[in-house]
């Protein structure tokens, strides 16, 4: 994707097409990125302040060392005051230790600021991602979101460790050196700085070379990674089509392009490093040349020469290593660009305008509970249309679920049954029509309230790593007694007892461990866990997507009893696959191709002689 100049238009993606995210890399200006980073850094200004206090201290201790050496040389060594030397040596060591201590504190505060900033950014990305609607996750692969929160954050952290902020310290040090040199010997200092214009021109030239180089590197790196990512994600297809060797050839070409992009950068980097070093040596030569003219003040001049040479060395080292820091910065900037691109992809869950409305609306009065709504259906879909992209899934669906009733939806795979669930909980937004709860459009309801009133039990029950209690309580607080009661009511205790001794969950203990993705629970057990979850939440409206997965007859019976317990006296919309569920429903809705083609009670529909009657007939043929 990376180098496609004209990204294709993305229908159905309201903001930025996230699929082509590498396309715009390298366009954002670094300064703009730094400005965007600032809000994350600002809360840690106290740490940065502490850093800003220790940083000049470290520099002062460091720059005092050549001065002390000069003092010892001119005042004691060259004048033969040998008794003062131990003290000089000790004082020198004291400066070194002070520098080390100060440097440790300086770096520690900087690291802490950096780590806290990264922690804040990681949390911000997490919050941002979780607040997106479900369609967002259909478009952006999970792997990419993970990379943003882990690897990209780590490389951004490098900026604190080695990049932009240490650059400030270098600058302070260089200014300090200039000031000290001017104070010691103005003429000699000015003579030394005669090399500076060359240095500035060189650095600027090298910087431009490297900037161009790095832009190319960034683009090619992105292209290479996009290619690898694509082929690894589609490995099954790659192998089935026997494209391995072709892909390898193409990858090699992109890889070679990436390698060659560095040729220029390596040349620029090596030249800059060496030439800066050479300019430093020339500056030293200038100092010697100047000093040789002062034959009278022999000893003092030697001291000046020694101290100048030390300072010149210290002055040139940061310049020499500038290109390396520049490289680190480039990596960090590329990472932050990707992170901000993700943060700019806004497809908020529940509202069109942003998450703020969810929060404020949640504080408002609850629109249900007061008044008598018995005349209104608990759930109502009126003329609902919906499509995933181009293909219509629902084409004008009308369903009314009266309070306390059980409505079964039946229909072929792809008839749109499951989509109804997703629209009811606003995982997706309907395109046309209205969905109402007690006569209130669900878009008027705060999202948390809507999702509190409706509980969905889906076919694929997802369990989180933790304990059974965690998985049933799901973030709410219940007493162990409540949890155990729920487990008993849905029959989960009996299901767990079937496991036999030994297993941690053998006794149906609420502390039984749950492995990642619930892999130590069978499909049937997972269903029962979901029932227990729903039972404890005691929702106003239950939505049940019956599982079609195979379970043994004994588990089947437990599940059937669990479902019955759960549905008792509750408004229920069930996507039915089981004969018993369908027959017992108060109302059966038959869906086909995104439309409701029939509805009524079992008896009505049989009498009507349509779809359902045909179904009925096959039932009868099956069970005479």
């Amino acid at each position, binding site marked *: 994707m990376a180098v496609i100049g004209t990204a294709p238009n993305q229908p159905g993606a309201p903001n930025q097409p996230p699929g082509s995210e590498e396309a715009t890399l390298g366009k954002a200006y670094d300064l703009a990125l730094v400005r965007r980073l600032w809000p994350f850094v600002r809360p840690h200004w106290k740490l940065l302040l502490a850093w800003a206090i220790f940083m000049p201290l470290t520099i002062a201790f460091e720059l005092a060392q050549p001065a002390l050496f000069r003092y010892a040389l001119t005042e004691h060594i060259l004048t033969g005051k040998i008794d003062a030397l131990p003290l000089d040596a000790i004082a020198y060591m004291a400066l070194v230790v002070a520098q080390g201590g100060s440097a*440790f504190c300086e770096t520690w505060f900087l690291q802490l600021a950096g780590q806290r900033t990264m922690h804040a950014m990681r949390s911000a990305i997490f919050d941002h991602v979780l607040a997106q609607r479900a369609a967002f996750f259909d478009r952006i692969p999970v792997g990419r979101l993970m990379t943003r929160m882990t690897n990209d954050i780590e490389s951004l952290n490098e900026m604190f460790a080695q990049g932009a902020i240490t650059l400030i310290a270098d600058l302070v040090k260089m200014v300090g050196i200039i000031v000290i040199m001017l104070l010691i010997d103005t003429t000699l200092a000015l003579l030394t700085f005669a090399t500076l214009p060359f240095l500035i021109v060189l650095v600027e030239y090298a910087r431009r070379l490297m900037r161009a180089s790095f832009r190319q590197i960034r683009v090619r790196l992105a292209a290479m990674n996009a290619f690898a990512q694509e082929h690894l994600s*589609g490995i099954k297809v790659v192998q089935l089509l026997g494209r391995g060797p072709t892909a390898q050839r193409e990858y090699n070409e992109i890889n070679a392009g990436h390698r060659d992009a560095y040729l220029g950068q390596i040349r620029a980097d090596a030249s800059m490093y060496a030439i800066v070093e050479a300019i430093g040596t020339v500056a030293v030569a200038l100092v010697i040349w100047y000093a040789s003219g002062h034959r009278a003040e022999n000893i003092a001049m030697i001291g000046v020469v020694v101290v100048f040479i030390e300072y010149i060395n210290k002055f040139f080292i940061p310049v020499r290593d500038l290109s390396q820091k520049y490289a680190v910065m480039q990596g960090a900037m590329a990472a932050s660009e990707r992170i901000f691109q993700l943060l700019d992809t806004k497809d908020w869950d529940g509202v069109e305008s942003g998450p703020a409305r969810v929060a404020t609306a949640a504080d408002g009065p609850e629109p249900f509970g007061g008044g008598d709504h018995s005349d209104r259906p608990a759930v109502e879909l009126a003329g609902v249309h919906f499509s995933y992209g181009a293909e219509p899934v629902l084409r004008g669906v009308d369903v009314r679920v009266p309070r306390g009733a059980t409505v079964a939806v039946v229909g072929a795979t792809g008839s749109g049954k499951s989509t109804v669930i997703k629209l009811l909980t606003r995982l997706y937004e309907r395109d046309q029509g209205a969905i109402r709860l007690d006569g209130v459009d669900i878009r008027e309801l705060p999202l948390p309230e809507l999702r509190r009133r409706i509980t969905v039990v889906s076919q694929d029950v997802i369990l989180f790593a933790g304990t059974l209690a965690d998985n049933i309580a799901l973030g709410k607080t219940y007493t162990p007694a409540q949890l155990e009661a729920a487990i008993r009511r849905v029959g989960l205790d009996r299901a767990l007892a079937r496991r036999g001794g030994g297993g941690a969950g053998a006794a149906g203990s609420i502390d039984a461990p749950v492995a990642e993705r619930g892999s130590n629970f069978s499909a049937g057990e997972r269903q029962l866990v979901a029932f227990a979850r729903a039972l404890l939440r005691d929702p106003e409206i239950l939505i049940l997507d019956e599982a079609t997965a195979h379970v043994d007859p004994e588990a089947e019976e437990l599940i059937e009893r669990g479902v019955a317990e759960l549905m008792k006296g509750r408004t229920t919309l069930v996507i039915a696959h089981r004969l018993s569920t369908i027959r017992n429903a108060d109302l059966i809705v038959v869906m086909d191709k995104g439309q409701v083609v029939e509805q009524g009670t079992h008896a009505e529909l049989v009498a009507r002689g349509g779809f359902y009657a045909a179904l009925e*007939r096959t039932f009868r043929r099956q069970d005479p």
Partner: protein
Amino acid sequence: MSTDAPAPAATPSSLGYLRPYRGQLAWGVAMLLLTNAFYLGVPEMLGRAVDAIGKQTDREIAMIVLWMAVFAVLTAITRIWSRIWIFNAARAAEYDLRSDLFGHLMTLSPSYYRKTPVGDVMSRLTNDVQTVRAVWGFGLVSLANALLAFVSVLGVMLWTDPIVTLWVILPFPLIYVVGQAMSKRIFGTMRAVQAELGTLSSRIQEDLGAIQVIKTYGLEGVRRRGFVEGSDRLLRANMDAAKVRIQLGPMLNALAALGMALLIFFGGRAYVHDDMTKGEIVAFSGYLARLVWPTLTLGFLLALVQRGRASWMRLVQLQQTKPDIPDGAGPPLPASDLPARVEVKDLTLRYDDRAVLEHIDLTLEPGTVTAIVGRTGSGKSTLVDALCRLIEVPPGTILIDGHDVSTLPLASLRAQIGYAPQEAFLFSTTISDNIAMGYGAGTAIPAARARELERVIGMAASADLRDEPKVTAAAAAAGLVRDLVVMPEGLGTIVGERGITLSGGQRQRVALARALAASPRLLVLDDSLSSVDAETERLILKHLRAVMHGRTAVLISHRVAAIKDADQIVVLDAGRIVARGTHHQLLAAGGLYSELYRTQLDPETTQPTTPVTFDAAEGTK
């Protein structure tokens, strides 16, 4: 330096990758040697100049200054070349390593990718390779430079004044001791950071995989708390690591600076006792200053080498992962235009302890259509994956035209099969390229990207395949024509990453067209029309009957319309074949098939038995 020294014996050294470039590296190191020799001239001249101040003539001073300038230029030239040789060699070795890894990754079986997230593999291919390259390039330059600086500087110092030299270099052996001790601590804390990062990553993965549950149950707050805790633990581990790492610099600096303190004391005494000239003292201070930077670089190098070692281990681990589906050693399948005959003989497959398929016996006669039905998790997809050998099967259990698939070269087997999976995966190129891949043509680089690559790298642009008859025929058979008409570029439309610009149904149909374009002898459709709306599916199925004529086909579908005309229908339940026969036979027999059939409630097939009209539906004729 050698990254392999502390690793287990089985780990090959990363330096093997540098072997092809040893000539370049030798040049680079030779240049570094010269650099250090020339660089030594500067403090030497400095010392002479100091001794000369007040005594010598202008001409001698001018000579000294001139010599310094000459040394500066020579140092610069050799320095530039040393860095270019070594860094370029490191980049070249990086290319080889990356290329090897990618090639290896292409051979690993789908089961590996089921266990390993792609993000994890990508991180190895990018970050770990970069770290190893940094060891090769920057690490090698720094190490060679530091060693050469130590040897050359110490040599000159010993030559000038051995006694003072021995005193001032006294602290330097400590650098080694400190470095050794610290590198162990650095490695330990870094491992802790990696562990926390791993925990956090799997947490993120768990949350993103469960996003619908998190939303519908309003779990954002709970999951966030857990995430923040994990992120905070990572922060702490990072700070623990930082604490160790940032001690190293000041400690090494102090050790190096101790030399200066010793010089003040011992050098001063030596001067007073006339054992050293003032110029020699100044030169010594210059020499010692020369050693500070290499010492500090060594500290950085230690951390780098530790990181490089960890990265290299991860790469070796990846490279040592063997593909669990080896290429068959036997001769390739003889070429033929006739439909394939496939036999499955007593096939049993187990994951862990669970049997996924048990005692499957099945024959696909040439030119027949076999449908596989069953509930979710009954083993349908596993069975068709086994036919394509995407899953390793016991020898002799699957035969194609009488040849055991495990003896066939994979390419030869898969060339016979056109496979359209449920999760249609498209490459970010044009639709025509995607279809043409079915018969080995097409490029995996998008046309636009190929053009850009041609510009920047000089790579040949791909041919435009949109008028290729095979492509257009396959697109038509897969019911794509209606969609292509409304796309501005038609078959030349670029589909975006993973085909994101297309709808789910469109993606599935492009994948179907790709499978058909191969004119396969065995066509496998794994629920490959599940996202296609029923109306379009009906049209496609009509086409397909024609396309499947003269081919052996296997199809999995949840829709009765798709399977009722199959020559045989196989009903799978919990990994076993529980029934087989035609639609009518199975319906008459009752059992699981008729149960599945009922719940499908497909009106198209229900209708003929009940010829009544109904008002609500637009109906079927």
